[in-house]
């Protein structure tokens, strides 16, 4: 197989992978974000504390997360066919990808939102803010670096799942790797595809890290970028007041 032949096959497959991951990531964020926030709000001591709702959501999320993705894909075939009219191709693959990723993302969102200082919530409450105001103006903006990291992790997971979807006719780079690399013994081609996936994942991770850093460093002077969580607290500008804490 020549490089030209490989390229001719890889380009459309790459596009399919991007579409598959892009659509499922978008829907996952759209549905997983409110779900994750709801997990925090309905928890004990939360703003909308409701044991029954919290347990119910938690249960569904845990079930969905326990099912191996390959089984989820097969189990969802009739639902997928009903929803998008087909059970093969990248459009069909977005359905199980999204359903698999939503609970995963929701748990990550939950963790990030939980880390927002309780005192900030109280401050907004003392100003007369409603629960919706607290979510929109405090919890989400303050959790943004963590949320960006969650989106990054979710996209990377979706890329690897999308390759798995390829093994059962999901289209994209996964299908290409199985059809040519595995079934036709084009080992070299398979490694080229794997290399491409590595490049995609690395690029997503770097982009995500950059986003997280710039969000976390809001207000920290200097062009230096620091890793999340290692940023030293305290004033960056010395002045007449000295911080005791």
């Amino acid at each position, binding site marked *: 197989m020549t490089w030209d032949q490989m390229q001719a096959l890889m380009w459309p497959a790459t596009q399919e992978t991007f579409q598959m991951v892009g659509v499922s990531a978008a829907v996952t964020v759209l549905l997983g974000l409110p779900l994750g926030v709801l997990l925090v709000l309905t928890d004990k001591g939360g*703003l909308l504390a409701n044991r029954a709702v919290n347990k119910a959501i938690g249960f569904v999320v845990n079930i969905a997360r326990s099912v191996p993705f390959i089984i989820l894909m097969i189990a969802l075939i009739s639902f997928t066919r009903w929803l998008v009219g087909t059970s093969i191709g990248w459009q069909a693959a977005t359905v199980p990808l999204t359903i698999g990723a939503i609970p995963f993302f929701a748990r990550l969102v939950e963790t990030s939102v939980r880390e927002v200082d309780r005192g900030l919530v*109280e401050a907004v409450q*003392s100003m007369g803010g409603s629960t919706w105001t607290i979510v929109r103006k405090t919890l989400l903006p303050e959790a943004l670096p963590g949320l960006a990291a969650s989106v990054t992790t979710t996209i990377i997971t979706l890329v690897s799942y999308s390759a798995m979807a390829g093994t059962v006719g999901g289209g994209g780079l996964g299908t290409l790797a199985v059809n040519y690399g595995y079934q036709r013994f084009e080992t070299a081609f398979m490694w080229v595809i794997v290399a491409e996936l590595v490049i995609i994942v690395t690029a997503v991770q770097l982009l995500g890290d950059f986003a997280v850093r710039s969000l976390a460093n809001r207000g920290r002077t200097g062009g230096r970028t620091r890793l999340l969580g290692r940023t030293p607290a305290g004033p960056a*500008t010395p*002045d007449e*007041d000295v911080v005791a804490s």
Partner: protein
Amino acid sequence: MITTTDLTKVYRSRGREVTALAGVDLHVRPGEVYGVVGTSGAGKSTLIRCVNMLERPTSGTVTVDGVELTALSGGENRAGKELREARRRIGMVFQHFNLLSSRTVQQNVELPLEIIGLDRTERRRRAAELLDLVGLGDKARSYPNQLSGGQKQRVGIARALAGDPKVLLSDEATSALDPETTRSILRLLRDLNQQLGLTVLLITHEMDVIKSVCDSAALMRGGRVVESGELTDLLAKPGSELARELFPLSEFGTGHAGSTVLEITFQGDTSAQPFVSQLARTYQIDINILGAAVETIAGRMVGRMRVELSGAHQDNVVPIGYLREQGLQVDVLGAADGALA
């Protein structure tokens, strides 16, 4: 301005009950700075959080500026519309500032204005005004991370004032600050109290805070107010625990056996009188000064002096009567045995 009657708060967790407030009556008059002091666990933090319903009291009532907050629906996490509106008229500042790190200083101050529903231009104008008021006009575009502790608390104060409140609650606002910064923040609170006629209820564990800004104070212990009143009255009250804490003379000498030891407290005009020499001249007695201190409390000069008169208490009844006639507060600490508290 703020009245609580028989306020109780009981926390229940896993079958155990913890009483944080055991019937607190508090009366804060309009325009005064009222300090609640006590050790940690005394219930003062619960008390201030009950005032704006961040904690819903178990029983009792809270009235702020004529509105009975305890009668409004919701509380703690699910405040009803009326309670949320009432909260907008009560500013609150926190020990750890609680500023949003994702927002600039100006945006932090604008947050309560967004909640009220002011438009953008109006919000900007008001935020700039408030930041000038607290002396941070040049920091509008900075982020909280770029500020020192004192500056952060100034932003917190500006934010608390955004809704034009009549009442400001201060939850250990200076406890995370060094002494110098504490003084500047307290001065700011005092200025705001005088300029805007703001009523301030603050809680603290530091007696110095009470001494430097408060008009009135309450001492809390075990969920109860054990003593309260205006500082000037408290200082004039014999045996006042708060007065003793505000103005400790314990390190002074305790006199000789067989003598009478007096503690004389003088305030305002009486501090200008040369009563010691008058006493000595009038009654031909010897006076030994064991210790003395003058301080400014609640904006007034207050002095306290411990003196020793020779002879037992009964020999000194007349001179003591003379001092009391001069408008001085005289506590007889003990006589004869010299063993004093």
